[in-house]
């Protein structure tokens, strides 16, 4: 099928381009690893505070870092599109019979592969610190990260198509990502939050991703947060992909 074939071609090209410049991958992992090493140990004594979930401080903390990777890794992929637009590569592809949707899918697929690889590396690095994982928890985590990637990457591409400038894109992402990050309970669980902040946080979709992954990591596999997080991001991913498909079809490079 043409769409699958074209998607694969774009995926292959995008992944090779990413691997040719692995600095981005390393930088993307650097920050969460710093948090793990320099911030994580502080949580050990905080973990006994009232309201802090049980299950071990590492198992509470690492799910937040995984979502943080997704936010930055997925959010910033628009930069690669801005560069491809400027080089004229997007226009060159648009004159070929290639499917426009394939361009979106191929690039987003690359982003998901990058995200899942980074997440697995972080999990492996965190195990010596005291993180414990089981197969079920890992499967749910990867599923949520895939859905999260397929929500954030297409959104980032649509914004890149609109802004077409690295500077504007960086400012936009910072303006949106920081409040989303703070409200998602990545660093400290929102169970510690006063009422108003907790209520505000439920409006942040990232909170539900963190909560779902945290549930499977802290021995609550049947917690309703798990199906909620999965369903929410499956839905958001479909919406983001459909919206981005329209934007890619219309965009004049």
């Amino acid at each position, binding site marked *: 099928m043409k769409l699958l074939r*074209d998607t694969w*071609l774009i995926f292959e*090209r995008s992944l*090779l*381009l990413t691997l*040719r*410049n692995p600095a981005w991958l390393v930088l993307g992992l650097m920050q969460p690893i710093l948090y793990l090493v320099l911030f994580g140990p502080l949580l050990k004594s905080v973990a006994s505070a009232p309201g802090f979930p049980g299950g071990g401080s590492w198992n509470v903390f690492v799910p937040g870092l995984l979502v943080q990777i997704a936010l930055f890794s997925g959010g910033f992929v628009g930069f690669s599109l801005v*560069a*491809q637009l400027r*080089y*004229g*590569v997007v*226009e*060159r*592809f*648009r*004159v*070929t*019979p*290639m499917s426009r949707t394939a361009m979106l899918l191929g690039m987003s697929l690359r982003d998901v592969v990058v995200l899942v690889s980074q997440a697995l590396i972080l999990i492996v690095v965190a195990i010596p610190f005291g993180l414990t994982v089981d197969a079920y928890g890992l499967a749910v985590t990867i599923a949520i990260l895939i859905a999260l990637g397929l929500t954030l990457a297409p959104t980032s591409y649509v914004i890149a198509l609109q802004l077409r400038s690295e500077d504007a894109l960086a400012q936009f992402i910072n303006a949106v990502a920081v409040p989303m990050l703070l409200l998602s309970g990545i660093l400290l669980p929102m169970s510690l939050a006063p009422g108003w902040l907790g209520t505000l946080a439920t409006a942040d979709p990232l909170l539900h991703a963190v909560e779902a992954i945290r549930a499977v990591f802290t021995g609550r596999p049947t917690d309703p947060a798990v199906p909620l997080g999965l369903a929410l991001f499956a839905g958001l991913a479909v919406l983001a992909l459909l919206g981005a498909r329209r934007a890619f079809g219309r965009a*004049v*490079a």
Partner: protein
Amino acid sequence: MDHLVEFPGPMIETHDLRRTFKGRGGAVEAVRGIDLRVERGQIFGFLGPNGAGKTTTLRMLATLLPPTAGEARVAGVDLVREPQRVRERIGYVAQGGGTDPAVTGRAELIIQSRLYGMSRAAATARAAEVLAALQLDSAGDRPAGTYSGGMRRRLDLGLGLVHRPSLLFLDEPTTGLDPQARANLWDEIRSLQHGGTTVFMTTHYLEEADALCDRLAIIDHGLIVAEDTPAALKREVAGEVVTLGMSGSPDGPGSLEAARALAEAQPYVREVVPDDGVIRLYVDHGETALPALLRLLDGAGLPPQRVGLAQASLDDVFLRKTGRSLRDEAAA
């Protein structure tokens, strides 16, 4: 993917093709009704000042921009109804090219071929063939970012023709190239024509239009103002051009205007066009007109500071049709 698909009719045929852009200040009619006919096997040149609608027309014909109104058949296919089938038959090389500096020329050619449906093996073979034909084989495995301007342009051309299109669109193909690289690219474009490909190109360079193109169209304010062979266009303008630079004040508005009025009244002067501080007089026989003009202006107390006599060139055609000089456009 067959070489040069069969279809009846010309390679490009447009009828009342239009494009309007909606901006903040209201709608802008960039292209206001273009009728074009490009026969197969031609190198067709498209000239026009910046902002005349040249690139907009090219982008519409290359399926990058949907027309607001009008009809067009490109390579035998209805442009508006079946842009996807048009894309299979055309190649397009943008002015700025379209390569990622981190990707090798070979890898770009392979993915381009594969996007046109070739298998991996066929694409690899085709990439090697194109690299060899464009004398890029030794640079094929280097990132495109390391190429010289001329090499990059040859790669862009290669990307436009990997799938052996019937029709190739080139937007300012030699802009920014040194004379050697330009001549080299002209040879490539001519050899494409010998292979049966029709070329539709825009250019700012007169000598390029003159040397390369079988036919030319001049577009201004969104309309075609002239279309013919380069020779016929030049014939239409007149035999020779007398250039007069007037003395007096450097800008010399007074003496320039007076000289212009005087010259315009002479029966042997066909037309007078002001051009950046000088006036250009179109005459049939320069060798008799020039002394007559000098006597006339001297007698009127308007001795010219400089005079020139030259064969009418394409630039004169352009100047007469658009009121602007293509040389200024090229410098812009």
